[in-house]
């Protein structure tokens, strides 16, 4: 399992591959493509086994944990990569809670890279089902437009559970909602008398515990994505400050500008510690959820703020779509909005601190 892997080497390989496969120019050009995800990039990552990262070894996966996933998300964030791995990697958590009930063939498909999964947030509304068919609407499902499978919150016989729905099943439709962040996609899913397949209603023994585990892993993933994005946009900005001249001087020599990037850099060093710590805690550590929630709230806001300032530090070109800082700002703002607003998360953190 995870300790057999050299995580640093793995992290290095993620970054290196994306630097080659998804350079800044590609990221900038992709923005106007209108795609839900980049099929070529997905195929390349699937070829490297990235979607298999958290799938169990029994299903052809690598069986790695939250820490390995965090490094992958940090690399994806650094490249602003349109590869919908957040839901795909989280899906294994839900199947993991399903026990022997099912999901094996789905896990195998995830592991081989042929199935992209859109996962509803734990806080989202559940669709009612009698266990045989389901009808209803799920709004604002991340990465729904490019997915092959939805994992939706369901309510069956008064008990919370999850439904695995093939996106090409009869009665399923997706209305895509354009996002400011073009590196991810969003859709409203409508289910019209959709038949529920064998083993596709997942009834976790402890639904609340599964919600917490999902929240924890998603928060670590989002914080890691933001960390990677923050480090990347700052590096890009510092590089620009070393070549852009005004008044006969490099703008990077102006103290009013360099002090800002020094603060951003120092804050990101702290953010990296938070993400590494939250990602490395075992699932059953008493402070695992607190660390994940507080880290997510802090790091997503931090990177959104750094990316905001990086546009300003670029000056006029920062306002053009030809330069990349705006991609990071938009991705950072979406990360901030996912899995609970900052306000909702801080309320939970406060509850936990009070209970401590």
């Amino acid at each position, binding site marked *: 399992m995870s300790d057999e892997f050299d995580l640093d080497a793995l992290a290095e390989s993620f970054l290196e591959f994306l630097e080659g496969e998804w350079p800044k120019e590609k990221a900038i050009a992709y923005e106007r493509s209108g795609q839900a995800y980049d099929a070529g990039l997905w195929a390349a990552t699937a070829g490297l086994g990235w979607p298999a990262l958290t799938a169990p070894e029994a299903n052809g996966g690598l069986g790695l944990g939250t820490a390995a996933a965090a490094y992958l998300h940090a690399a994806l964030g650094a490249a602003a990569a349109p590869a919908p791995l957040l839901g795909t990697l989280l899906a294994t958590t839900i199947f993991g809670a399903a026990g022997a009930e099912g999901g094996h063939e789905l896990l195998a498909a995830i592991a081989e890279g042929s199935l992209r999964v859109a996962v509803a947030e734990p806080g989202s509304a559940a669709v009612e089902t009698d266990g045989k068919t389901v009808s209803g609407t799920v709004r604002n499902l991340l990465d729904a437009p490019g997915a092959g499978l939805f994992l939706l919150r369901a309510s069956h016989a008064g008990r919370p559970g999850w439904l695995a729905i093939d996106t090409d099943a009869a009665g399923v439709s997706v209305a895509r909602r354009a996002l400011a962040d073009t590196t991810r996609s969003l859709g409203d899913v409508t289910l019209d008398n959709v038949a529920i397949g064998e083993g596709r209603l997942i009834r976790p023994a402890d639904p609340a515990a599964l919600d917490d585990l999902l929240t924890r892993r998603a928060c670590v993933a989002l914080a890691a994505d933001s960390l990677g994005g923050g480090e990347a946009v700052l590096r890009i900005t510092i590089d620009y400050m070393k070549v852009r001249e005004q008044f006969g001087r490099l703008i990077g020599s102006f103290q009013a500008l360099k002090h800002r990037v020094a603060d951003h850099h120092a804050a990101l060093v*702290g953010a990296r510690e*938070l993400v590494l710590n939250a990602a490395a805690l075992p699932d059953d550590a008493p402070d695992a959820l607190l660390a994940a929630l507080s880290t997510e709230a802090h790091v997503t806001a931090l990177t959104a703020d750094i990316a905001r300032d990086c546009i300003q530090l670029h000056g006029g070109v920062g306002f053009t779509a030809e330069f990349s800082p705006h991609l990071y700002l938009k991705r950072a703002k979406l990360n901030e909005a996912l899995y609970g607003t900052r306000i909702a998360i801080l309320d939970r953190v406060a509850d936990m601190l*009070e209970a401590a």
Partner: protein
Amino acid sequence: MTQTDTLAPAIAERSFDPISKVGDEQAFRQEIRDWLAAVLPADWRQQWQKVREADLKGVMNWWLNERRKVGLATPHWPKEWGGPGLPFSYQIIVYEEFARGDAPELETFTISLFHTPATLFEHGTQDQKDRYLGGITHGTDVWCQGFSEPGAGSDLASLRTSAVRDGDDYVVNGQKIWSSASMHADYCLLLARTDPNGKRKHDGISYFIMDMKSPGVTVRPIRQITGESEFAEVFMDDVRIPAKNLIGAEGNGWNIAQSTLSTERGLLIFSATERIARAFELDGIEAKNTWMRDVGLRREYAGFYAEMQAVRLMVKRLLAELEANPDKASAKLPTFIKLNWGPLLQRYGEFLVRAEGIEAQKWEPAIPGTGHSSRMRFNDFLKSYGWTIAGGSNEIMRNIVSERILNLPRG
């Protein structure tokens, strides 16, 4: 009866010996906890607040002696110089438990316990070590640091205090400032210029041990914005320092000063951040029925948690680096820690003043030994400037990060 007698707690029921527990971390930890519970009066803060400057030395010496009884006067010192010779991981536990148990901080002895050994262990002569270290491990010698000057703050290397060789002595003239505890000090770690014609301003600086009782030394306490006087100006008027009090070679003072200052980048910062982290926890719990019922303030409080954790984790990484290699810890990490920690403390201090409303506006005398967590809101808020100005202002830190670490061009 001296005032310190009133500080004696209930007679300890047994004797304590944490050092004998080395080898069993949990037992070591527990022994320190039990000892603190037995020896430290629950109301020491109130008692020390009454004593204040009238008998500051008395209370500080009392606590140093209590620590000495259980071998923890100088917990991070090697055996060779009278310390317990604890492995680094146990030194960490000591400071962790001091923070957890709210043991008084030996503020008057900060230089004695940290800066003096950091300097003498490495650069002192045998004679200097024999003569001066014992006064700390076995006595109550207070040391101060004479580095900064009115014209040499962040730009320390431009210091102008002069030391001119005259026979077996150096004759020193000049002025030092921000010298903590110098009004109580027996000795001073002094930087002075022995060669005014050095190629760079860092050249020609020498490092001396100055006896504070020497004729020509005048100390004038500085009243701070907190109302206290923790540091003073030190004036030197033809002060004669014997040449044998030179530390290291003449002109090598700048390099040796780096050893002195490096001590701030380890257990000292760890102790500071752990104490604040403990206070942070208590702040939220104690405000359960006051500002924690205000949804906005409650969220603001929760937002500080991750920032506190980030600094603690950075400090823990620094300690791990120091443990792995005491001589080669990252020089960058302490800079990042300071840039995060100072402003955080200031914002959190301001938050508490705001959250506690009129109560936080009421003035109370400071409490010696409570560092940055006196938990008197306005006092702690004002004291937080110590972290953003002292030890190289954060503006200098930002220059260092941007120019030396991020390689941005000099202005």
